[in-house]
């Protein structure tokens, strides 16, 4: 096993009081909040589209996506532009905090608690010192099959 495989480089961001992580390889850039054009008749968590250097990019509010109460956007609010396969979208987060290396062996599968239904987009949980990072599965975050969870 090579060294690279034992460490995962991630971007750490926060939502409400929790810290989440996405692999750096999936992150294209981090942007400040800018004017979002609403796109009618889309999923509620799709806030609209922005002009990202000439490319029209859809924006998802992760708070709405995860069912956290919406708050007003602050100065620290960021849009993390992520890419999976052939889609590029922006995620609105409370703040982007850090770039970190997480040892792969510190990642544990997400805790299964009775009653928590929307865990399909969680990849795992990493414990580092006193921080708890929630790793996201981007594909699952972007595919809106929360309808299952609602029923």
């Amino acid at each position, binding site marked *: 096993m090579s060294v690279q495989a034992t460490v995962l480089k991630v971007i750490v961001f926060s939502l409400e009081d929790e810290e989440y992580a996405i692999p750096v390889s999936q992150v294209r850039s981090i942007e400040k909040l800018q*004017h979002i*054009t*609403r*796109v*009618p*008749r*889309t999923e509620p968590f*799709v806030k*609209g*589209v*922005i*002009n990202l*250097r*000439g*490319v*029209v*990019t*859809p924006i998802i509010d992760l708070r709405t996506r995860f069912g956290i109460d919406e708050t007003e956007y602050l100065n620290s609010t960021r849009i993390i532009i992520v890419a999976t396969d*052939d*889609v*590029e*979208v922006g995620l609105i987060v409370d703040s982007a905090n850090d770039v970190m290396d997480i040892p792969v062996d510190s990642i544990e599968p997400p805790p299964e608690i009775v009653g928590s239904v929307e865990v399909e987009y969680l990849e795992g949980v990493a414990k580092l010192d006193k921080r708890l990072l929630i790793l996201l599965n981007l594909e699952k975050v*972007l595919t809106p099959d929360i309808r299952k969870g609602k029923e």
Partner: protein
Amino acid sequence: MEMDQYLEVFIEESKEHLQACNENLLKLEKEPENIAIVNEIFRSAHTLKGMSATMGYEDLASLTHQMENVLDGIRNLKIKVTLSLLDVVFKSVDYLEEMIFSIAEGGDGKKDVTDVVLSLKNVESEYKTAAEETTGEQNNVDEPTASITNYDDFELTVIQQSKEQGFNCYEITIQLRDDCLLKAARVFMVFEVLEQVGEIIKSFPSVGQLEEEQFDSEFHVTVVSMETSENIEKQINKVSEINKVIVNDFYNDSNKTQVHEQIQAQAEVAPTLAPQQKQMNDKEENLSSKSTSKYVGNQKTIRVNIEKLDTLMNLFEELVIDRGRLEQLSHELKHSELNETVERMSRISGDLQNIILTMRMVPVETVFNRFPRMVRQLAKDLHKKINLQIIGAETELDRTVIDEIGDPLVHLLRNALDHGIETPEIRLQNGKTEEGTVILRAYHSGNHVFIEIEDDGAGISREKIIQKAVNKGLIEEKTVESLTDSQVFDFIFSSGFSTAEQISDVSGRGVGLDVVKNTIESLGGSITIHSEISRGSTFSIQLPLTLSIISVMLVTIQNEKYAIPLSSIIETAIIKKSEILYAHNQVVIDYRGKVVPLVNLKDIFEVPTITEDDEDVSILIVKKGEKSAGLIVDTFVGQQEIVLKSLGNYLTNVFAISGATILGDGQVALIIDCNALIK
């Protein structure tokens, strides 16, 4: 062998060379005595042969080789250009095209070419026997002791130059022992030896064939070296399993180069040396262009992925937005030097914008240039005499439009030839010239490009169409009188409509014209017909300059801005609220005597309400085919040219939104798809 990287270049260049062949063959048909044209065809064929041999497409190479032999005969005035001969050559070019297309589509480019090769050989052998009779020349290339006889200009130049620099040039014949097991390995060793003492100019058979052991026991190599012939002979003899080595001095006998190029010529460079091969071909071309100044028009181009151009365009638009901000800032600051600099920048970026926009443009020539060939063949098949004139082939269109427009044009041309132009007999009876004229014309006008296909044939019979339309139940007999000519002619674009009395191979199956119309409309264009009985018809196609820029009407709905394509807007109107009527739960208005349903975009798009409605209502009347609807908006911002962008792969199938654009202030505005709003 890693060939993939050259494959694309190979296919593109082959297509270009074949096109050049086609064009020049047509020219040759008109001026059969013009040897300069033959030279050009020969050059194209020669390059093609070299390239295909390098890429390992043997069928291609062997066919081009035969073609080249015949062309060489014409060049040397040994074969006369006749119609039947041209037909054979045309046919071989057709075969070559098929093979190239097969390769382009991922095939192996193999094809049974024996029949054409045979007819080419027949042509060639006719002249050969004639040549032998007159000059008594012995053609002994098929004998095993033959040496390399076919050097091209480039090789001769190299040999000549090395001789001037004091090198010796040898033709070496090497015979391997009959019981030699690994012939290719021995060849390799011989080549290694030769490369140490000098440079290999050419080998026969080609290195590729030698590697594949496609030879009996003997092969020939031409080498330039400082060494003496004895030394070289000794060196080669050190390689085991060699029977005999003959080293001859090479002397430049002009006969040698002119005499028939027989069997696998110009296969001197192995596939491993592909880049060099290319270079050589280029050099060759340079050499020949120097020698014959007529060979011009080789514009220098590079191929760029269209995606890269799109990215460039995107980035540039961002720059334009920043420029706007900068202009505003400098204006506020009233700093004269800053003002000057910003103005300069504005001008430069304006020029830059023009260049970027035109980069995607391609002359329609790329589509038109295959038509002369097609028309020639069709005219022959239909026993008609046709003079095709092409005007404005340099007119430029967006690449995406160019890609789509080919098939509709082919269809219209076929129609013009088949139904439009009459047979020579009828034409003479009607007091016309025997030869029919078809004019293919392209020109710019405003933001559009027009392509017209005009023939001086029989024209379209209004009565026939009306009769047919009535039969098919498309119109009622009563309304016939009120129809304008263009309305009548429009019927031939309905599916399953053909007025041809006789169904022919070429056209007249009644499928197609509706497809033509659909294709053109999907490109944002339109087609109209103008026709006069016994004077001819003109099909006029109007196309947008580019697909990526469209004209829209910008409107606001509350605080949001939307764009509506001008192409679907009939007109705008401001009406009083009291004029809105209710018909069975549906809001409608009386618009010029017609009842038009109203669509409130604010409700459809769930726009958050900020201000309350006032007494006046702004509406846009939009159409979809024959149907129309009125869209309620808040204010009209104005007309604008915008760059069409997609919403990306994530947001697909958004209701009634066909795309987005970026406005001057950097914000995104959505483009409304009116078709989805009209049921």
